[in-house]
Structures are given as C-alpha cells and as structure tokens.
C-alpha cells in the first residue's frame, strides 16, 4: 500500500514528477503541437480531461475486474481499449453537443489515443499501487503537469520566432535542448516533496 497523502501525490505529479520532464511521456505531441499557445492550451486541456477520467476508469477495471480474475497480464490491452473508446465517445459527444468546442479540440482528439502520457498515467497508477483517492488526484495532477509543460514550451517557442536558430537545430533539436533546460529547473522542485 502506498501511504503518500493525496495532496502530495497531486503536487508531486505536477512539479517533482512532472509526467513530461521527469518521465518523458507525451513527447511526440509535445514536439509537434507546441508551436502556438492556443494549440497548446487546446491540446493540454483535452489531455487533462481524458487523463483524469481514463485513470479513474482504468483503476476501477483493474482493481475490481482484472485482479480478482487473475487477468492482470492483459491490462495493457484493456487500458488502451478504454482510452480509445473514451476518446471516441468524447469525440461523438462533443461533436453533437458543442460544435464550437469540436472545431477547437476536434483535431486533437485522435492524437490523444496514441499519446503515451495517457497510457503512462494508467500504468504508473498500477506500478505505484495508488488507492482510489490517490488515483483521482494523480490523474488530475499528471494531466495538469503535462498542460503546464506544453503551455510553457509553446510560450517559449512563440518568442523564439524572433531569434536566429542554427538551421540544423530548427526542426526538433532546439526544442529538446530547451526542454532540457526546463527539466533542470523542474529538478529544483525535487527537494520540496519526496513522493513516489
């Protein structure tokens, strides 16, 4: 049993164990979609929303269906199926009830299915043995942490439009180097909390 209090899980998943800067999850969409702040905010909120609900659903399925039946080895395929189904439902729901939101978020939703941060959150939830309360706060915190990371990077990249970056670094190199610097600053939070 993991005894970390929920507030520590929540803050830890945003700052000390940021899912992007410490666990490198969700890098692909982070690299591609961080060129404008508006895009980053759209994708960030979609990821937070999906991550929050899928970790809870996956927790319930894992704890109350898979473990009692001894089927925990198929958990990966169940987790990814839950995520894909959730995203599909969300897409239909949003399209039906709020076309504006659909146009804002629509293109991001298919990307989310293969965003490793979402699956990663569910896997970490299993590995770290969180209980229900911790899972709820972890799902929310990890999503917000990813949101924070992509929003930070988008802000920096908008500013970078004015600077003269070496040609060979322009595609992804410079983003990785910048992410390294941000990761170093996030390491400064490590002393604040020692969470698992």
């Amino acid at each position: 049993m993991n005894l970390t209090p929920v507030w520590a899980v929540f803050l830890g998943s945003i700052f000390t164990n940021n899912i992007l800067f410490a666990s490198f999850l969700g890098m692909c969409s982070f690299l591609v979609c961080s060129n404008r702040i508006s895009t980053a905010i759209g994708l960030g909120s979609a990821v937070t929303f999906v991550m929050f609900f899928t970790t809870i659903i996956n927790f319930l399925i894992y704890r109350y269906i898979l473990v009692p039946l001894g089927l925990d080895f198929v958990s990966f395929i169940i987790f990814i199926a839950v995520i894909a189904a959730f995203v599909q439902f969300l897409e239909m729901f949003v399209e039906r009830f709020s076309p504006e939101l659909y146009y804002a978020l629509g293109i991001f939703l298919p990307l989310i299915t293969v965003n490793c941060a979402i699956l990663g959150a569910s896997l970490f939830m299993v590995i770290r043995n969180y209980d229900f309360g911790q899972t709820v706060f972890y799902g929310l915190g990890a999503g917000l942490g990813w949101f924070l990371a992509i929003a930070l990077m988008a802000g920096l990249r908008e500013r970078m439009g004015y600077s003269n970056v070496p040609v060979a670094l322009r595609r992804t190199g410079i983003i990785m180097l910048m992410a390294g610097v941000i990761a170093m600053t996030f390491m400064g939070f490590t002393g604040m909390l020692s969470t698992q």
Partner: protein
Amino acid sequence: MAGSTTTAAPTRSRGFQPFGGKGRAILLEGIYKANPVTKQVLGICIFLAVTNRVANSLVMGAALTFVTAMSNLFISTLRNSIPRRIRMIAQVAIIATFVIIIDQLFRGFYWSMSKQLGPYVALIITSCVVMGRAEAYAMQNPPLPSLLDGLANGIGYAIILVLIGVVRELVGAGTILGYTILPPAWYVNNLIFLLAPGAFFTGGFLIWILETLNPTSQEPPAGGTEAKR
C-alpha cells in the same frame, strides 16, 4: 483474405530478394536515410526514458525491433480485411499482443530488467514508431517488405538508443555496460546525464549532429506533414 493473396502474388513472381535491390533500399531507408528518431521524430518518449544505461537501451531496442517487425508483418497480412474506420483499434490490438508477449517474457526470465524498465515496455504500444510504420507502410504494402521495413526501422531506432545510452552512461557514470572506462580516481561523474535533463541535452545534440551531416531537404511547414500523426 482472397484480396491479400492476389496482391501478394505479383511480388512473389517478381522475386522479392530481402537483401538486394528493393530489400536493401527499404533497409537503408529505415536505418539511416529516414531514421525514425532523428528524421521522422517518432517514439521520443521511450528513447529518452530508458537510455541512461547501455544495457537498458540494448534490451529496449531489441524489444522494439521485434514488436515493429512482427506487428508490421501481421498488419500487412490482414490489411485487406481491416475495415478502414476501425483500423486504429485493430492495429493497436495487434501491437499490444506482441508487447504483452515481450512483457511476460521479461517478467518471467529477466525480472530485474523488467523492474528497471518499469512502464516503458508497455509504452511500446503507444510508441509512434510502431504505429507510424503500421499506418504508413504496412497498410499499403505486402507482408515481406513490411516485415523488412519494420526490422529496418526497429534497428535504426535501436542504433540511436544505444548511441545515446553510451554517451549518457559514459558521461554520467564513467562506465559502459557496467565496465569502468573512466576511473573514478580522476573522473568526476556528471550525474545530470543520468537524470532527465541529460536525456534532453544528449538527444538534442545528437539530432543537431545528424541533421548537419544529413540535412532534411525541405523546411517542414508549421504543423504540416508531422501534425497528421
């Protein structure tokens, strides 16, 4: 299934040689010219997370090569019977099956390695390399070239993993595969290379070097071809 046999037949009659002509072109494309990490920027998550030790990089590279090759083979075999609308789910299901095989193997025989790699073995499922090759190559091509394409991309990915692993372990701990190269008597370990920022820096510099040696011809339009993923 009748569809897939008819499309595969002309390839067989032309005589597909895995290591000459077209086969070699596919291998070269995946390993160097269009390397999945540095050129297509796919699968960065795993690539940064497991490279702090050379051994981890080797194991992960081998696992990923196996999954990419096998899932490409199977997806390509089934490509004419997969309905277009649900192809994502079908691909993910096939990929996840192979990932579960690998994960169970590691748990059974290499428990300590499985413990170290943590969730990243499972995350091969969402690795864009595997999905990307399935979508871009295996859905359009016959099984044998798809198998080769998967192998080539997996190997190209593994080479970059090991390169990064060597740099990070050498600078961060002064060892390679656990053997001391830089003795602690005069070399002060630069621990940051074993931690998260070191992964970003090494990756960034490696992409810089490779991009200088082998430049991408056209400037990508903002959110153009890449955003389709």
